[in-house]
């Protein structure tokens, strides 16, 4: 149930970002769904015992893949979906906790949180880069089939 509420919140959050980035309104719903599903997958995988880094890596791959599929389907740049859909995965909370523990004088905890945020960011990078390697024609054939 919590997972579902968080999924809805992620959809709302992603659509809000889509608006801020001036995505054309006809793509709002798809952006929201991609962002929501990505965040849902992270939480699900973490419940199943994966680390945040691993979960984010897999979710990023899903987000990038679905962005590319939607881009072919709706005939628009994948960037539109990718930029919005990645936002829920970005370690914004990690940045906050790093600042928080630094101020509280707990340097070791701050370091832990800071490195965790960097690991998540690297996971996102790897996930995006890997999925961008799939050649474009595979997507186009998928569509005509």
């Amino acid at each position, binding site marked *: 149930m919590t997972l579902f509420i968080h999924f809805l919140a992620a959809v*709302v*959050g992603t659509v*809000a970002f889509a608006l801020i*980035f001036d995505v054309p309104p006809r793509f709002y719903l798809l952006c929201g769904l991609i962002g929501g599903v990505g965040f849902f997958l992270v939480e699900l995988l973490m419940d199943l015992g994966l680390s945040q880094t691993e979960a984010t890596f897999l979710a990023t791959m899903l987000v990038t893949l679905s962005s590319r599929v939607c881009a072919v389907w709706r005939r628009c740049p994948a960037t539109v979906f990718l930029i919005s859909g990645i936002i829920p995965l970005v370690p914004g*909370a990690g940045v906050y906790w790093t600042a928080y523990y630094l*101020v509280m004088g707990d340097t070791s905890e701050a370091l832990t949180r800071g490195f965790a945020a960097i690991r998540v960011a690297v996971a996102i990078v790897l996930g995006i880069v890997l999925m961008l390697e799939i050649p474009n024609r595979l997507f186009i054939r998928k569509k005509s089939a």
Partner: protein
Amino acid sequence: MRYSMDEVLETAVEAGHILLESGAEIFRVEETMERISRYFGVDKSHKEFFVLANGLFATGTTERGHFAKVKQSRVQGARLSKVVAINQLSREIERGKYTLPQVRQELERIKNLPEPPKYLSILAAGMGSAGFCCMFGGDAADCAVSFLAGLILYAFVVFVSAPRMSNISGNLLGGAIVTVVCLLCQRLGFGHDLSHMIIGGIIPLVPGVAFTNGIRDIADGDYISGAVRLLDALLVFLCIAVGVGVVFTVYRHISGGVIL
């Protein structure tokens, strides 16, 4: 129908410039410029484009001698609707639907596409903050405070920091404003978990476009532009953290106690 090569290159540069300022990847900018000039009859041997994150260079050999153009660009914020529109335009050019003057006209229209109204962006930032607060485990009251913090933050971004402040001080102050609003609300008895409220509140500042495009540029081998964009993203993250941290420090001195 043949067009003057100067005019073709001019149009390609204009399209590239709009794309670059709206938050497109370097690869897309280069490809679009390439497509437009190829379709209207300027082939590879007659021109060279060089695109960086903050400017583009175009040179060519034309009937009238030499063509050269440098355009600076400042990314003010993503305008993905323009990227979508130019992408559409460049597909249709290749299908032969446009003459060069029509392309110029269409580019002029795309360049002046209206921004989403300011109040809507501010409202969206509030919704986004509330949504992210909930995702990270905040309850309804926390989300309400995040919503308020997001609204105030984005009003500040739209009216003060975006038009007249540097990236550094804008994000620093942004992070500080969110923290102040959330601290005040908590002291007045609204909201329970300060951390969730602040995390939700600072989310609208997250540099999503710079981060994602930076990764894509590096993946495409555009290292300079990718590095510049990732540096930009990192700087924004750091500034937000410092903004939050400074307010916490001051608050600790005033209240003399622990936060939370």
